[in-house]
């Protein structure tokens, strides 16, 4: 499915988030969207659906991040969520071999259903627990390459690798969509990031009122 351009020329993309129960996929997204890590006593959020607006090289992008339930009992429901995804982030825990096996299952299913149309990222989370690592980097990298995915290490706890991972994902999405979206005007508060790319973190809205389609397209991600 081609990403559509929403209100204000922002490219709407659907990113599905997969991974076993305790690998920390929700923490990664919360860290990215809200810069929060749930160590303790942080304001609670509904984090199963989150949005992030970005401007990369004057092109606006809205990531609609769909979390999925990772418990084994819900595994068969996955395909309902993959439908029409533009990108998928498959997360495993570097200290848990089983979670890596499960990640491979998801990747296989995704490729089967969506072919190569989906931008794929494999994420080894909990990189702060390096000493307990059981999945070797070489294996993970090789596996990712073999399925046409990129591999990243992240630590939601230390906020490491997350920005980079999402940035790379977004850039690949924009490349894929070619010139479908309208470039927006330069935002003066843009910051330069490594790689010469201008990235602006647009309004952060996770709590957009939208009940029942009542929103009249007022939000950036309308």
């Amino acid at each position, binding site marked *: 499915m081609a990403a*559509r351009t929403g*209100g204000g020329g922002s490219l*709407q993309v*659907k990113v599905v*988030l997969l991974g076993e*129960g305790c690998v920390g*996929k*929700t*923490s990664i*997204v*919360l860290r990215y969207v809200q810069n*929060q890590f*749930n160590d*303790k*006593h*942080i304001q*609670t*959020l*509904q*984090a*199963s*659906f989150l*949005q992030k607006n970005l401007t990369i090289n004057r092109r606006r992008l809205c990531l*609609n991040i*769909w*979390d*999925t*339930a*990772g*418990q084994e*009992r*819900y595994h*068969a*429901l996955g395909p*309902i*969520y993959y*439908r029409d995804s533009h990108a998928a982030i498959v997360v495993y825990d570097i200290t848990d071999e089983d979670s890596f096996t499960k990640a491979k299952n998801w990747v296989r299913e995704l490729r089967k259903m969506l072919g190569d149309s989906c931008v794929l990222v494999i994420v080894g989370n909990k990189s702060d627990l390096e000493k307990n690592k059981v999945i070797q980097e070489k294996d993970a990298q090789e596996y990712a390459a073999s399925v046409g995915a990129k591999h990243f290490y992240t630590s939601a706890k230390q906020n490491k690798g997350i920005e980079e991972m999402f940035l790379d994902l977004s850039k690949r999405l924009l490349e894929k969509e070619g010139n479908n979206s309208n470039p927006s005007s330069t935002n003066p508060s843009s910051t330069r990031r490594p790689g010469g790319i201008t990235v602006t973190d647009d309004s952060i809205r996770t709590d*957009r*009122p*939208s*009940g*029942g*389609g*009542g*929103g*009249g*397209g*007022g939000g950036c*991600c*309308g």
Partner: protein
Amino acid sequence: MEVSEISFLRNKVVEPEVFVIEGKSFLEKMRHTSCFDLVRRIKAFINAFTEMEGKHNPDQFSSKLQGFLDEINLVIQDHSQWRDEDEVGIKKAMEALERYLLTRLYSTAFYLPTSTDAEDDESFYYRVRLLQFLQPDHLDLPKRKYNQIAFEMAAQEFSRLEEDLLKSPREKLACIINAVKIVINLLKYSTSDGGTGADDFLPYIIYLILLTSPKHIHSNLRYIRRFRRPTSMTSEEAYYLTQVESGVMFISTLDHTSLSITEEEFKRGMSEAEDKIKNGRDVPRRFSKEQGGWERLLVDLAATNPSFKERDEVLSPLQEEEKELDESKGPRLPTINDSIGFPQSENFEDEEEREGEEEEEEEEVKEMVDTATSDKMEGSSISRGQLLMATISDCLLPKLLQKKFEDMTVSELKELHNCYKTLGSRLEGLKEERPS
């Protein structure tokens, strides 16, 4: 639970009734002579769509409607009546058109005879009744995050999906989103350990579906997928719709291995329910709109209060009225509303050669506009549910939830009595406003 907490639970809940009001300006614009051709096309489409009945598969119905909406979207963008409208204005017009069309085409589009909707609904409803023995624990719902009142409130919103009064896909979707929002609000309110991801969230949705025990879940979900314009759905709405779809799928396929329950316990629960159903002793749905907890709370209380003796007299006509509306197929009969100007026949000069038809058409255009504007604007502009809800959250709940009657002080009872009086007078007022 305090009043503030109750209103917190209803945060971001949008009553589907607002869509009627939103669509008014579209229908008013359609009255202009420049829209005559547009109205003609819409009517021709309605006829063509109705004639497809029984002959085409669901995908064909869906693409027929979506294709027409896309077509009209282009027409409207260049039309003089919408020239000054921005993107949002066009979007609203398209929403109004979608709502109008599907309200009109409901009897054809809902429950397509060429689909398996009816069978699937029936088998799901049977299954959900078999599974009524399941408790929050079986789905690993943490007790401290479970709240009966919140769930009943959510179930009430969810079950509105099945009201025939709400006919358009957008309204039906709104019922689902509203129910989900209440669950989200509950989780926000009761979680103190960080964000709630889908791992935590999906089991609540599954439990909500079990609690609501919908009779027509497949037909409703598919109706939304087939006829809601995909570009009108936000990603967030699509996400919650998907959550509900996956919850339905989970319930349809689950066995003891997908729950925290022993095989024996699961089998026993299922066979007991099966026996009950076989012997004609229906397994009660734990929540039902008709006599469900949320409204029942109020009715039970009212029954104990002498000042509310006449409640049946007040409530019954409202219930009857709702029933009538539920039973009526297609949009309600038009209400003649002369206060809104309608083009006179001389405005349709180009139609001279078809005079007879023209008059008929004009009537139909008028009917189209009137039907759509009057639909629900009057009879149920405040539904009984809304009224009760408002009253409960205004004044009754803190008492309901914190104390039993026996434990209340005199002043608390007095206050509660005043609440009843308020409710009584609101119902009376409502009764007087209506033609009998």
